[in-house]
């Protein structure tokens, strides 16, 4: 799994590619937490367009970061998950608490 973390319009933007499981979860969690802790950022956009696989470990990383920003009134947005990823997100119930958008510009407009 690869990812790029950037700050755009005062939002932490994480663009992920590949398979999100136990092999990558710890590093992703640490890097996202470091980026949040070292800034005043409250919102996160997770672009999932290039994520080809996710399981409950990956969902846990998302839920953990969602809880973290929610505590300070922040929001999280998920962008464009592929069908097999979307199925897991829906089955977990995560999409009922975290908004999902079809592209980044829509996500920026809604949570920015």
């Amino acid at each position: 799994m690869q990812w790029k973390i950037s700050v755009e319009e005062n939002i932490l933007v994480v663009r992920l590619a590949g398979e999100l499981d136990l092999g990558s979860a710890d590093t992703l969690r640490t890097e996202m937490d470091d980026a949040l802790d070292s800034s005043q950022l409250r919102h996160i956009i997770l672009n999932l367009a290039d994520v080809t696989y996710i399981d409950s470990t990956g969902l846990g990383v998302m839920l953990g970061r969602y809880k973290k920003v929610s505590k300070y009134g922040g929001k999280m947005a998920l962008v464009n998950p592929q069908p097999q990823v979307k199925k897991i997100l829906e089955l977990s119930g995560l999409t009922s608490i975290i908004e999902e958008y079809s592209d980044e510009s829509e996500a920026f407009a809604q949570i920015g």
Partner: protein
Amino acid sequence: MKINNKFKLQIKSVPDNVAFARVTAAAFASQLDFTLNELEEIKVALSEAVTNSIVHGYENNDNNYIELAVSLTEAGMEMCVEDNGKGIEDISQAMEPAYSTDPERMGLGFVFMQSFMDNFKVESEKNKGVKVVMFKKVSSVDGKPEH
């Protein structure tokens, strides 16, 4: 049911082996007529079982081993994932949705295994490891036209 093909694998309890195990099982499963969707479900179910062994059974200690045995029959594929870790004291509690001993985890591992597999069984005792046996039916077997 006659076993047409089978493999056994012993993998170290390291996180990178979750992907290795699921890709190997999915490649083996492709010897049957599983749909792409079914192969995705097999990958998730197996990953959850191996992840549980690493995270819960061995508490992230990477110096242990997980046994994987996968068999193909005409009806489908059976996957057995076994560890020698700390075991589960209360299986019914562990199977409850959203039950997790770790706040960073969603407690959905067993839920996904149950949802995606046609048969699912967990055997465990405290300090005696966990054995998960799952079976995925080939859906095309049911719908196969008669000749």
